[in-house]
C-alpha cells in the first residue's frame, strides 16, 4: 500500500458545494478505483479508471464524476454535496493484468459535509 497518495487528508465542506479529491497511484500501476467508506461500513465502489476512461461504475449518482490523467493520477469530483456524502474516500491502484488483482489503498480523504 505504500506509494498511493491522496490529497487532501481532511476536508470540511458546506452542503451544496463542490469538492475535488486527488490520487496518485503506486508507481507502475495504471488502474485507479475510488471507494466511499461511511463510518462503520465497508468500502463501496464508486468507479474505476483505466486509460483515462471510466471503465466501470458503482451505484452512485451522476454528482460523482472523475478523471484520469495521462500519468495515471486521478481526481474524484462531487457536486452539490449532501450531508450523506460525509465519508472516507479511498483511492486504490492496481495493475490491469486481469481480474482480481490486489489493490493498494491510499490513506484516504476524510470528507465532512456540514
Amino acid at each position, binding site marked *: *500500500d505504500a506509494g498511493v497518495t491522496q490529497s487532501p487528508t481532511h476536508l470540511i465542506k458546506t452542503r451544496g458545494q463542490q469538492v475535488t479529491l486527488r490520487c496518485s497511484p503506486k508507481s507502475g500501476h495504471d*488502474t485507479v*478505483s475510488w*471507494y466511499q467508506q461511511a463510518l462503520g*461500513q*465497508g*468500502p*463501496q*465502489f464508486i468507479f*474505476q479508471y*483505466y486509460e483515462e476512461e471510466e*471503465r*466501470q461504475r*458503482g*451505484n452512485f449518482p451522476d454528482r460523482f464524476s472523475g478523471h484520469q490523467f495521462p500519468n495515471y493520477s486521478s481526481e474524484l469530483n462531487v457536486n452539490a454535496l449532501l450531508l450523506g456524502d460525509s465519508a*472516507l474516500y*479511498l483511492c*486504490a491502484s*492496481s495493475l*490491469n493484468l486481469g*481480474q*482480481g*488483482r*490486489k*489493490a*493498494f*489503498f*491510499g*490513506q*484516504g480523504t476524510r470528507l465532512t459535509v456540514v
Partner: protein
Amino acid sequence: GQQVMQIPQYQHVQEGEDFTTYCNSSTTLSNIQWYKQRPGGHPVFLIQLVKSGEVKKQKRLTFQFGEAKKNSSLHITATQTTDVGTYFCAGPGATNKLIFGTGTLLAVQP
C-alpha cells in the same frame, strides 16, 4: 447484484483467545482477498486465495477458501492487541472492481 456478507459484525476477545471471521458471497468468486483496516487507517492487503479449498497461513493467521468458492474464513490464533482492527474480505466483480464484505471489527482486551 453481488453481495458479500461477513459474520460476526463485531467480536471482543481477551488477548490470547482465538478469533474467526466468516465471509459469504452471493456468487462464485474467482478469488477472495482479505484486508485489515486499523482504526483511523485504510485497508491493507493481507492475502489472496484463488484455488477451491485453498488454505494459506501467515504466522498466526489462517485463511481458507471454500470448496464452492463462495465462502472464506480468517482465523487468528492467540490474538494480540496488535490484531485490533476491522477485517474485510473482498471478491472481484468485473475487471478489478472489488466488492467488499461488511467487515468484522475485532477488539482485543489485554
